[in-house]
């Protein structure tokens, strides 16, 4: 098991300057914001389950940029059909990372069903071109590197520990600022 904020630190250190990084509602966005708040980040403050379809649309519209989707197991399970759609559309520039702590940690760590359902197997069955499951930090490093030598869409399942960070701040940007900064980054207006 990897502490989620350590996984996010590792992922954000690996992210390239022109990558678009989308993070789901709750603690994941707060930890991405705290780790590396950059113009190419989009923090999905609400709309649980919507992130992966938004990321798919972006990946199809910006094929020259890598789109990194960072969501939890609860969010992925809510939109399991989107995994099938991503696999069917096959965007080579999409990296889908599921931080799987088998719980709804943001709302009090209530258990999810991903302890019983292997989301990497789901991704493989759907037809993601490259699927890796990791449960320790060195494995995550290798999985991120391996995306450079395989065509996407990629799915990395990160088995994560429940490890809340005390005092983690909320995303301080307003929704319209998040929108405009991100759109400006995509359209190179920044």
């Amino acid at each position, binding site marked *: 098991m990897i502490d989620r904020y350590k996984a996010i630190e590792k992922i954000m250190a690996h992210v390239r300057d022109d990558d678009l990084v989308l993070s789901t509602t709750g603690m994941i966005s707060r930890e991405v914001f705290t780790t590396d708040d950059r113009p190419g980040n989009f923090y*999905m*403050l*609400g*709309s649980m*389950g*919507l*992130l*992966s*379809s*938004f*990321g*798919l*649309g*972006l990946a*199809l*519209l*910006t094929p020259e940029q890598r789109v990194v989707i960072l969501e939890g197991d609860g969010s992925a399970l809510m*939109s399991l*059909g*989107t995994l*099938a*759609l991503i696999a*069917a*559309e096959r965007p080579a520039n999409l990296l889908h990372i599921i931080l799987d702590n088998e719980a709804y940690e943001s709302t009090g760590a209530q258990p999810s069903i991903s302890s019983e359902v292997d989301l990497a197997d789901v991704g493989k069955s759907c037809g993601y071109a490259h699927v890796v499951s990791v449960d320790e930090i060195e494995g995550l490093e290798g999985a991120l590197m391996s995306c450079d030598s395989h065509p996407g869409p990629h799915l990395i399942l990160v088995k994560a520990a429940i490890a809340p960070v005390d005092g983690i701040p909320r995303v301080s940007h307003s*929704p*319209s600022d*998040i*929108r405009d900064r*991100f*759109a400006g980054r*995509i*359209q190179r207006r920044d």
Partner: protein
Amino acid sequence: MNAQSFWDVLKSRGLTFFSGVPDSTFREPFNVMVQDPDIRYVPAVREDVALGVASAAYFAGRMGGVMMQNSGIGNIVNPLTSFSLMYKVPVLLLVGWRGYGGPPNDAPEHWIMGVKTPELFDLLELPYRILEADNLEAVLDPLLVAMKEQSVPGALLVRAGVIE
């Protein structure tokens, strides 16, 4: 109106990126659309997924569209309120208006939503227009203006038989 003419007008307004879930209201437009190399259509598995996919177009400096049946409005209420309206991301909703006018029109499963469809857009304060066979440009252009001015989604409600 003719399905090809329908798309010619939408394309002339820059609307070429769509996602959706099919509805029989759009049977002919759908067939025309998927044959058109100028239009990119992503066949979503749910209406909220279609909204997520299509909304990405705004961030690329374009306007996306969702094609759906009005029974799917319930599936997009959360993304409309906590994504589209919160971030102010416009997207055009092409909504097949099944059960228009309530019973005895259409099948029983469409009766309630058939009556509630415009009320739901009113409730969410989203602009919408009703397409007739001869008024596409007259309703689409003001709708797009309202959507861009308010930076919110807007809906074009389409009854059975209006596009053939």
